[in-house]
């Protein structure tokens, strides 16, 4: 009993530095953001501010009455939904290829890691250059092959830029999904496949009735991780289309308000709303997995 108490105390002391750092870089700044959202603080004069209640949220020029904010909410949700869906499907396909013994497997795995290793800013620049409306190699190829009659403005055309952003994100992040899915595939016991083969079950049915149900839990976890990550998307949009309305995400909106417009109060209100959105999704997921864990126990 004495010894257990000592161990617990030691554990607390060892966790303390981590807890202190996280309180300093996460807890405290978050509480300040929420506090600022109730004031009219500006970037140039953070100290001279006045308490304005909820008017940054509900007021006439508040976040919730700003159509630009709602456009960014729509963009973010659509971005998260479509990119995660595409990444999951493509990732699953690549994982199945990687899980199948072949001579190409090593090369494939190495190649797939390349987009993932490239910094987002760099991949955004690479694609911006390849998709350049006048000199981009993709437009050159498309025009030469006769698929389009004139070059497309991939990043400037509001109707096209959103699709472009999603595709660039899919290119960069699919490897992550593929590797996680592959790890799940490798945990499927071999007996399951052998039994199915003995019974003469066709491959497609093996996939839908054996493989998919077994990897689904891991796949869902990966999707949630990716989804939460996609909800805070910033880099790729900022670099490729900066503040264009057609692609502006919630994070881009927040930074534009905070830094470009110097409206710390208004921007912090938007940041708080983004945080709340992500917190709600995270909590819902944690509760769901906890109740599931209790069921299986």
């Amino acid at each position, binding site marked *: 009993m004495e010894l257990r108490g000592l*161990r*617990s105390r*030691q*554990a*607390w002391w*060892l*966790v303390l*530095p*981590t*807890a202190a*750092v*996280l309180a*300093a*870089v*996460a807890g405290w*700044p*978050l*509480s*300040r*953001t929420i506090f*600022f959202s109730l004031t009219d603080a500006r970037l140039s004069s*953070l100290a001279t501010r006045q308490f304005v209640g909820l008017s940054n949220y509900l007021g006439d020029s508040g976040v919730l009455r700003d159509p630009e904010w709602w456009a960014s909410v729509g963009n973010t949700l659509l971005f998260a939904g479509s990119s995660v869906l595409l990444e999951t499907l493509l990732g699953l*396909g690549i994982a199945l*290829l990687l899980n199948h013994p*072949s001579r190409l497997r090593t090369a494939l*795995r190495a*190649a797939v*890691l*390349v987009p993932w*290793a*490239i*910094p987002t*800013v760099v991949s955004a*620049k*690479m*694609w911006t*250059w*390849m998709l350049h409306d006048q*000199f981009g*190699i993709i437009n050159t190829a498309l025009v*030469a092959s006769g698929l389009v009659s004139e070059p497309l403005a991939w990043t400037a055309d509001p109707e096209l830029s959103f699709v472009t952003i999603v595709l660039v994100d899919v290119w960069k992040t699919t490897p992550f999904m593929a590797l*996680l899915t592959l*790890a799940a595939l490798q945990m499927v016991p071999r007996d399951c496949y052998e039994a199915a083969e003995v019974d003469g079950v066709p491959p497609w049915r093996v996939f839908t009735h054996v493989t998919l149900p077994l990897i689904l839990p891991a796949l869902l976890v990966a999707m949630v991780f990716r989804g939460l990550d996609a*909800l*805070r998307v910033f*880099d790729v949009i*900022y*670099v490729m289309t900066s503040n264009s309305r057609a692609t502006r995400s*919630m*994070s881009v909106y*927040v*930074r534009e308000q*905070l*830094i470009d417009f110097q409206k710390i109060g208004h921007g912090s209100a938007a*940041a*708080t709303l*983004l*945080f709340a959105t*992500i917190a709600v999704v*995270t909590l819902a997921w944690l509760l769901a997995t906890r109740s599931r864990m209790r069921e299986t126990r």
Partner: protein
Amino acid sequence: MRRHASRSGIWATGLRRGASLLVVFVSLFPLAYAIATSFKQGSDLFGAQFWPSRAVTGNYVSLFRDQPFGTNLLNSTLVAGVVVALSLGLSLLSAWALGRVDFRGRQTLLLTILGVSMFPHVAVLSGLFELVSAFGLYDSLAAMMLSDLLFTLPFTVWVLTTFMRDLPKEIEEAALMDGAGIFTLIFRVFLPMLWPALVATGLLAFIGAWNEFLFALTFTLSSNERTVPVAIALISGASSYELPWGNIMAASVIVTLPLIALVLAFQRYIVSGLTAGAVKG
């Protein structure tokens, strides 16, 4: 029947091979094109051909001569290095506690740490800005070293905890029986057993800090304090139609090749680190 099966087998193999080659091509083409572009100058940049008609190194030279790109590289290395060292040091201590001691509040702490790793970075931006300014760290590397811990530390703690939990109990008991203190246990006994996990998490944290953009963009002002992603994003010409694409691609190649070398060299560790972070949790 059998013949039919083998014929469909050939089809399946061909399909798989075709799909694999397509994936390899799509994965590698942008980088290959960036490399090709980085050796082009003048009108060559705007031609339709893939390879430069005459390979020149001028884009690379001017990066280091006309811009503080060498300094930017050093900045990125310093920031990422310090962030990784701090994250691993702190998380080794807490991973022992969180992974191996059943103290009250442990579950809450673990969930909080997982929650922090989901934080949208802009949600702490104004608070961190105030903090960084208050300590006089604005426009300095220390600002990034501090703020990057927001996302590296939860990750390293979480992954190392899962690895620490799986180490055999007998070793710990034997060490404690021999009168080893807690720090001896963590750094002399467990640390050598955790090398693969440390390499994996350290590398992933390094990549995260190396690629970090939002904080680096917001907390720096002078080009000498910029990290590489910000420097690349802000390379500009007289107008958007005169962006120096040769320079941008040269810079992109320089920051990407070391990362790719690292990732390929430590492939196995990385996959284990990624899956420990997501699947095991």
